[in-house]
Structure formats: C-alpha cells, structure tokens
C-alpha cells in the first residue's frame, strides 16, 4: 500500500485565514493510507520544500499531496521537490484549497474547512492509484519552413540557414521581396529599397541551405512541433529569376496595374502544371505580410474612382519611377495632399487600430515629393503624428522645417473630383478652421490589413488570428514571436503592421526561437495523455471524430484507433466518446475518478 504524505499550506492568511489548517491536518491523518501530515506557512518556500523532502526521507513516502494554491502555480515546484527526494513527479498532486475553497468561501470557515478535508481526500485517492510515469521524448526534424518571402521571411530564412539548418522558403508570388519590391527610398535616409532587397534576395537564392519555392503555397499541414508534414503546391517554378526593379512593370501601362495582375503563365510556359511537394518540417515561421485596405472601401475619399486619388504604394511606385506625374493626364502635380489614417483609427467604419507605418512613410513621401518638385506644395492631414523610433521624430520635423510640408491637424471628411482637380475637405483644429484644398493629387495612407488569404492559411496551420486576421502572438508582452501553436512562430507584418526595422527584429527573434528548438536533441512531452487498450478497441473511430486536437487516427492496418502522442493534450474527449472503455487517460483513469468520488459522496 502506498504511503502518502499530506502537506497543507497556509499561504500566509490566504488559506489559513479561512480554513482551520490544524484541524485539516488532524482529520486527514486518520484517512487510510496517509502516513504523514503537516502544515506550514509557505509550502513553496525553501523551508517548505525542505519539509517535504525531509518527510519523504523520514517516513518513506511514495505519494505526495500538497494542499495549496492552483496546480497552475506550483505543481512544477512541488513535483521537482518530490523528485529530488526520490518520488516520481507524477505521484505528486495538488489539492487546490485556495482558489477553489478559501478564496470563495471566506465567510464560511466551517464549511470551507470541511470541504478542504474532503478535497484532499479525493486527491489522496487519486495518488493512491497514480502510476509512476516518464515523460515522452520525441525526435526533432531540423528543417524549417518559412511561409512568405518578404523581408521578414527572407531574414528569418537566412538566419536559420546560416546556423546550418535547411530551410524551405515558400512564396506565393513569382518573386521574392514582398511589399519592399514596390518601395522607393526608405526612411530615414532614403536608401533605395531595390538595392537593399537585391542583396538580400541574392543571399537567399545562393544559400546552399535555402530551398526557395515561388508561386507556391502551403496546402496542408499535419503533425506537430518537431514533426510537421507539410504539403506545398507550386504552380510553376522560376529558376534563377531576376529581381524586377519596382515600377518597371508600370512603365508601359500607367500607374494602375498591380503586380498581381502579371500573367504568370506567360512567364514560364514550359512548366504549367501544378506540382505538390511534401516536406518533413520541425518548425514553421509565418511571414505572410500585409496588404493595404482597398480604396474602394473608402467611399468618402472617392471609393477608388478618381484616378488622381492614389494609395501609398502607388505613390511609392511613382517615386521609384523617378518622375511624379499624376495618373489622369500625366501632369506634374503642384498641390499634393496626403490623407493619414485613411481607414485606420476608425472604430465605427473601418479599422480601429493605428496602422503604425503611415505617419513615417507619409513624411518620407512628402519630402521625396519636394525633392523632385521643389515648387510644389505638400499638405498632410493627420490626427496625431506617431513617430516612435530612433530618429523618427526628428525625421518628421525635418519634413516641416526643411521641406515646408504643411501639416494640418484634422481628419479629412471628403475627397471628390471637380473641374479636373481633386477637392479635399478637411479641417485644421489648431486654428479652428475648416479648410479646403484644390489638389492635383491626393495620396491616401490607407490602413494596413492582413495579406489576402491570411485567415485560410491560419486555419490550415491551426494557429489563431485576431479579429482582423493578423496572426495572434502567444503573449502580447512576453511571447511576441510565438503563435499559440507549439512550433509555429511569427515574423513581420503578418502579426501586426510593422516597418522594416521592426520586421527584421521580429524575424531575427523568430529565427532564434527556431534555432532554440533545433538545439534540443529531442523534445520532452507530458505523459499524462490518452492511450488505447488495444484489446478493448473495436475500431469504431468515434474517438477520431471527438478529438479536438486531431490527435486520434486509425491505425494504418489494424482495426484500432491510435493516439498521436505529441498532439494529445489529455483533454479526455475520446474517453467520453469511447463506447468500449478502451480509451483512458494516464493518471486519470475511470476507476481513479470513481474512487475519487467516494470521499465526497
């Protein structure tokens, strides 16, 4: 018979203020199988843990119940302490008498004390039948998949590849580079985006550890951290393509065509058939970037109809082209208005969040415009100017002082065409004047939104997104580069609008996370999961449908269900679903549950 020790924690007055801990100790000592019981002020403290270790040694305990706070707080602490004294960690359990008893029954000390005794007794029953378990170890496939070949994806891929691990980089466009391909000079010092990009792309293409799949998308994901299987469908391959200078495709056809309208088939007629590749992958980085809110969503700003109302990327392409000419008649615009927060910070009609990059690129664009059209007038309508970054505020101030950009505080209400010009109705709340500009060109700093298809991809990868479709990080402060799904990490604007420096920083963080995973020889997994009694399993497959984590599959040839250990979260849905009692959870068997019921009935 197991010799069980009980350790009742006061948690200062958190527990002892309500529950009569001495009485609990006295009562529980009499319970069958209890070989030792004691209370202490703070069980999690060093002396508290020493008490547990000492009692294990003195009384030869082989089962431990700590009656204290929630297992989420200190289960690990107490299991470690018990293991140090030679007791298997899975024979140490927590009876939660704080969150579930003392805190909620503060006005009923008598009942609380009785409930505590009964609760501890149930855990004694559990420990009595607990098995000594050993965590699983799983191999790690040391190959990474990076989805999205923008600056985020390329940065991550290069870091991982430089560390010596193979990387598969999947890009759905024909070319690497992402939105940076469409940019001109970058703030703060107007370095040419194509130059920076060309170097990066060359490094990626030439890297022996990076396999680039363009015109490709992830169509299926199976497996789990360290052991994913990924299916990638590639429409066609472009071996050794050349980076197109942004704007070069605009040259023949005006400003409007988006790069997506390129006809891929005409580029690579020799391999038109889609091909599917399957890879074993250990870790995944999602770097699918962003799109801009379509102008058509912004009815008050012309709804995308006036040709001389363009978005930030269109203006970037003009800058890259070298000459600023307005789309309608090719004239050099002399009065140009930028409309900030177009669709951002607008909880009623559009996106409630700040798109973060536009204040900076608008200042840059207005300056670049003045460099090219020195006698032109640049106006910027803003609600706040957000310039948080090294040298950013100084940069925006230069736009005002050195380039005479006129900043007007107020959100534009209406943009419409009249007599060949674009009229902007705005306000300057600083002077209290409603203002109007008869502009030649209007640039809308449209909201940054997740890239098209982000939600679908998230579903395929089983990672979560926020309400807008940006990939969700595991913790907003402490785990900003991880998704909530183990082994899947995030980089760049796919998670939230970011400029290039921030994107590169996060991409480096994601690479570090992947390398941290690859540095492990094998991964450890909790053994308290489901298992199937092959003798009892009839192969009905009900559990396969019941499992919310896709951890259940049918055996490839035997008529039984099997548990994919790494996917199982130990939720017990399969146990409930199984009509034959073939399905059980380790250390929470049906028999255990029934005996645990006894003390409270």
């Amino acid at each position, binding site marked *: 018979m197991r010799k069980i020790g009980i350790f009742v924690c006061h948690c200062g007055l958190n527990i002892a203020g309500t529950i009569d801990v001495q009485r609990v100790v006295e009562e529980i000592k009499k319970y069958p199988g209890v070989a030792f019981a004691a209370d202490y002020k703070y069980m999690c403290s060093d002396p508290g843990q020493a008490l547990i270790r000492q009692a294990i040694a003195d009384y030869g305990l082989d089962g431990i119940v700590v009656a204290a706070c929630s297992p989420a707080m200190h289960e690990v602490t107490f299991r470690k302490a018990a293991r140090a004294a030679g007791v298997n960690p899975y024979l140490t359990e927590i009876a939660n008498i704080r969150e579930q008893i003392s805190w909620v029954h503060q006005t009923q000390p008598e009942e609380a004390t009785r409930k505590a005794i009964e609760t501890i007794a149930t855990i004694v029953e559990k420990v009595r039948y607990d098995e000594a378990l050993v965590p699983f170890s799983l191999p790690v496939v040391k190959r990474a998949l990076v989805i999205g070949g923008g600056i985020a994806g390329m940065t991550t891929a290069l870091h991982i590849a430089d560390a010596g691990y193979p990387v598969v980089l999947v890009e759905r466009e024909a070319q690497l580079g992402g939105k940076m391909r469409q940019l001109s000079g970058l703030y703060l010092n107007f370095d040419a985006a194509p130059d920076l990009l060309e170097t990066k792309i060359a490094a990626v293409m030439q890297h022996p550890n990076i396999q680039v799949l363009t015109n490709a998308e992830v169509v299926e994901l199976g497996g789990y951290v360290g052991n994913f299987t990924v299916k990638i469908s590639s429409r066609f391959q472009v071996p050794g393509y050349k980076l197109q200078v942004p704007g070069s495709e605009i040259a023949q056809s005006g400003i409007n065509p988006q790069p997506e309208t390129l006809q891929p088939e005409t580029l690579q007629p020799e391999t038109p058939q889609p091909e599917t590749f399957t890879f074993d992958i250990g870790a995944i980085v999602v770097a699918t970037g962003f799109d801009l809110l379509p102008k058509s969503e912004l009815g008050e700003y012309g709804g995308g109809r006036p040709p001389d109302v363009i978005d930030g990327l269109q203006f970037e392409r003009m800058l890259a082209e070298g000459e600023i000419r307005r789309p309608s008649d090719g004239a050099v615009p*002399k*009065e140009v208005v930028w409309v900030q927060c177009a669709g951002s910070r607008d909880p009623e009609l559009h996106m409630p969040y700040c798109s973060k990059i536009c204040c900076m690129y608008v200042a840059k664009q207005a300056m670049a415009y003045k460099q090219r059209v020195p*006698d*032109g*007038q640049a*106006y910027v309508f803003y609600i706040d100017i957000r310039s948080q970054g090294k040298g950013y505020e100084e940069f925006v*101030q230069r736009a*005002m*002082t050195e380039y*005479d*950009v*006129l*900043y*007007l*505080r107020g959100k534009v209400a209406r943009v419409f065409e009249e007599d060949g010009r674009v009229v902007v*109705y705005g306000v*300057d709340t*600083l*002077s209290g*004047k*409603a*203002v*109007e*500009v*008869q502009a030649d060109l209007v640039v809308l700093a449209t909201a940054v939104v997740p890239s098209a298809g982000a939600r679908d991809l998230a579903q395929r990868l089983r990672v979560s997104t926020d309400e807008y479709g940006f990939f969700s990080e595991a913790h907003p402060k402490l785990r900003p580069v991880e998704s909530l799904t183990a082994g899947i990490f995030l980089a760049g604007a796919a998670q939230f609008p970011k400029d290039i420096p921030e994107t590169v920083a996060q991409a480096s963080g994601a690479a570090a996370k992947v390398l941290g995973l690859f540095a492990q020889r094998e991964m450890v997994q909790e053994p308290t999961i489901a298992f199937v009694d092959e003798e009892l399993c009839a192969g009905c497959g009900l559990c396969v449908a019941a499992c919310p984590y896709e951890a259940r599959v049918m055996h490839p040839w035997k008529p039984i269900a099997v548990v994919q250990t790494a996917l199982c979260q130990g939720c017990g849905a399969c146990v409930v679903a199984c009509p034959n009692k073939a399905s059980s959870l380790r250390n929470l068997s049906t028999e255990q549950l029934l005996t645990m019921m006894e003390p409270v009935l």
Partner: protein
Amino acid sequence: MRVKLSAMRVRNDLVRRIEELSGQDLLACYQCGKCSAGCPAAFAMDLLPSQVIRLVQLGLVEEVLNAKTPWFCAACQTCYARCPKGVDLSRIMEAIREIALQERGDYLVIEEIPAEELAEFPQLAFIGGFRKYTA
C-alpha cells in the same frame, strides 16, 4: 466658412515678409502651445500667441493683422525662452506689428494722446529698443 488653402496662400507675400522681418522659420513651430501657456499677457489677448503663428502658417495673415494680440504682446520674450523649437515668437509679433503699421499707417496719433495716459503706456518701445542690442 471653409478656408481655401493653396500654395499661393500658404506662401503669400505677407507670410514671406513676416519670415524675413522676424528671421524665424514659421513651420518650425509644431503647435505645442507652450508659448501660450506661459505668456504673461495671454489673459488680455483675443488670439493666443500660438494661434497667431498657426494662422500665419496657413497664410491667414489678414486675421492676425486685425487681431489685438500683437499689440498686447509685451515683447517680454518669455515665449522664446521656453519654446522647445527655438521659435522667437516675440520677433514674429514684432514683425506683425511692423507690417500692420506699414499697411495701415500709424493709427495711434501720439500727439492726440493725453500726457497722463501716455505716462501709463506699456514699455513696448523701450523693450523693443533693448532687443536691438541683445539680439
């Protein structure tokens, strides 16, 4: 009334003259309002000092020329001492006063002011005169 902004209006001749006379970069002012917050004469002004500069930034010089504020400005330079952007607003006020006087002629006929009132006048000229030596 909606004010029509244009390159012509924003950079009109009067704006340029204010800039020239004051030697200040008008667009350096980012409208923080600190000048107004500390101006000892603000209680008597019809436009706050920072509003004066804003109107000039927008090219609405007429409004400023018609305002009382430039005349209430005591040229004490408190605003300049405190401005985070180093804008000497007192010089801008002075420039506005100069232009107002040039544009409309002297509307204070000194001879018509009774001597006892004259004795009570602020030391505007006195302080303005000082600045020649300190600038």
